[in-house]
């Protein structure tokens, strides 16, 4: 059974590796599409933005641009929806976003996309994936973008519920509406509570992960999930935060499964992160494809194709006896089975 799963994993990895150039944009496109779909479903007011061609076009734009553009696009689309329902609330949301960026979000570093991922996963009912995975791969500082994501999600919840009531409002009621929204945002116990529990999850998982033992990542995920369920239960009973406990428990279990699958393929992510580099010296021009090793921390580089003065040297011309195992594997002649016993291609000094 386990062998079959591992084989499947190896197959998937090989597939991903081979077609990385195709798979990567496809995955990005799917992610972008899910993002825009979810936003439209949750706060769709502007019907033009909700049409399929526009959604596809936006997703396509998100596919071929850096992640930060996708975040920006998502923010603009959300603001547009709010604007149609209530211009005054859209301005308020824009100001709040700017404040959030100035004070907190600009310190999120390379985890900036978490700010977008958190509200989207909230809408998909599995926000617990975020702390469970961040606890696995990142340090506790990543609570910064996570907290921003939670705030943005709650903000849109409050604002879109207010926006529905807003449609019949007269001008003089704008101030009342504004005060009402701000009051509800400040008094939002759930928001503070969610951020606190998420922070405890990330911290607990980070600490567990540092312990030296077997299956430490799986244990860490389990600890994270337990902390999550207990944390929200305690918060619910002590603070009466009116949480939906059943969906929380199911969401946590689902998130845990996702985190486990992620962990199973984590090195797969490394594996698909194939580095292609090109450089030259006096005599050659090098096209090098470097594959990080699947199960070992030490990256394995296999030299795939090297050409001399833009003339490809075909693998047949290379004497097999001179090739190392890695190189033969790279040429597709060696099976993958015993790769764990391979020596690291590089020896660190």
């Amino acid at each position, binding site marked *: 059974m386990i062998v079959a799963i591992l084989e499947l994993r190896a197959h998937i990895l090989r597939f991903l590796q081979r077609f990385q150039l195709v798979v990567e944009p496809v995955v990005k496109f799917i992610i972008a599409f899910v993002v825009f779909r979810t936003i439209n479903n949750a706060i769709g007011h502007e019907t033009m933005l909700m049409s399929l061609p526009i959604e596809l076009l936006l997703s396509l734009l998100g596919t071929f641009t850096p992640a930060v553009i996708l975040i920006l696009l998502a923010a603009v689309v959300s603001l547009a929806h709010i604007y149609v329902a209530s211009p005054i609330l859209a301005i308020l949301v824009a100001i709040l976003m700017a*404040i959030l960026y100035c004070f907190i979000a600009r310190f999120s570093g390379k985890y900036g996309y978490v700010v977008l991922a958190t509200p989207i996963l909230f809408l998909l009912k599995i926000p617990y994936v975020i702390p469970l995975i961040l606890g696995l791969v990142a340090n506790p500082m990543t609570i910064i973008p996570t907290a921003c994501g939670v705030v943005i999600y709650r903000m849109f919840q409050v604002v879109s519920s207010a926006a529905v009531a807003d449609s019949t409002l007269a001008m003089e009621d704008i*101030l009342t509406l504004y005060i009402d929204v701000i009051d509800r945002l400040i008094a939002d116990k759930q928001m503070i509570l969610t951020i606190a529990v998420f922070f405890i999850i990330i911290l607990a998982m980070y600490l567990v992960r540092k312990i030296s033992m077997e299956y430490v990542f799986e244990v860490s995920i389990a600890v994270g999930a337990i902390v999550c369920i207990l944390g929200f239960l305690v918060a619910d009973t002590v603070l009466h935060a009116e949480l939906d406990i059943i969906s929380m428990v199911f969401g946590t279990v689902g998130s845990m499964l996702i985190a486990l699958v992620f962990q199973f393929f984590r090195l797969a992510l490394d594996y698909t992160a194939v*580095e292609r580099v090109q*450089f030259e010296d006096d005599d050659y021009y090098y096209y*090098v494809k*470097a594959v990080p090793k699947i199960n070992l921390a030490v990256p394995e*580089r296999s030299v795939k194709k090297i050409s001399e003065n833009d003339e490809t040297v075909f693998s047949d011309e290379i004497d097999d006896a001179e090739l190392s195992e890695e190189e033969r594997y790279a040429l597709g002649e060696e099976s993958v089975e015993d790769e764990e016993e391979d020596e690291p291609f590089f020896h660190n000094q």
Partner: protein
Amino acid sequence: MLNNRKVRLMTRLAMYEQTEGKEDVRLSKYFRSDYVRLNVLKTVVAITLGYLLVMVLLVVYHSEYLIREAVTLDYEGIILRYVGIYIIILSIYCGVGMIGYMIKYRASRKKLAKYFRMLRRLRILYREEGEPTEAEEESIGYDRGNT
């Protein structure tokens, strides 16, 4: 003739150059004090902007009260209080930011130093490849002694 060791070393160098090396090289163009100062300055601008926006929201939120009490308000006290809060927030951010950016700069410098060590190894490989002259042989020995 292909030299495998050279290819590996160059691959590693190129990988670094094309990923995190970019940022490190960019950082290395600054003195540490300049880098930290620039980033703290950016933080000051962001905090000031953010604080102003918060003030706008606050003023609108309390606008009814402000208009009603416009004549009797203790403006001096209010301004002093909010400027005080601003200064406290700013100094916290600047202090933490300064330490954070210093740590970041130092880490980046370390990575860069490793990169240069690899470059030196590559240079040695080059010298070994080309039939070295006597003077070069001497310097290879010298380099090796140092690495």
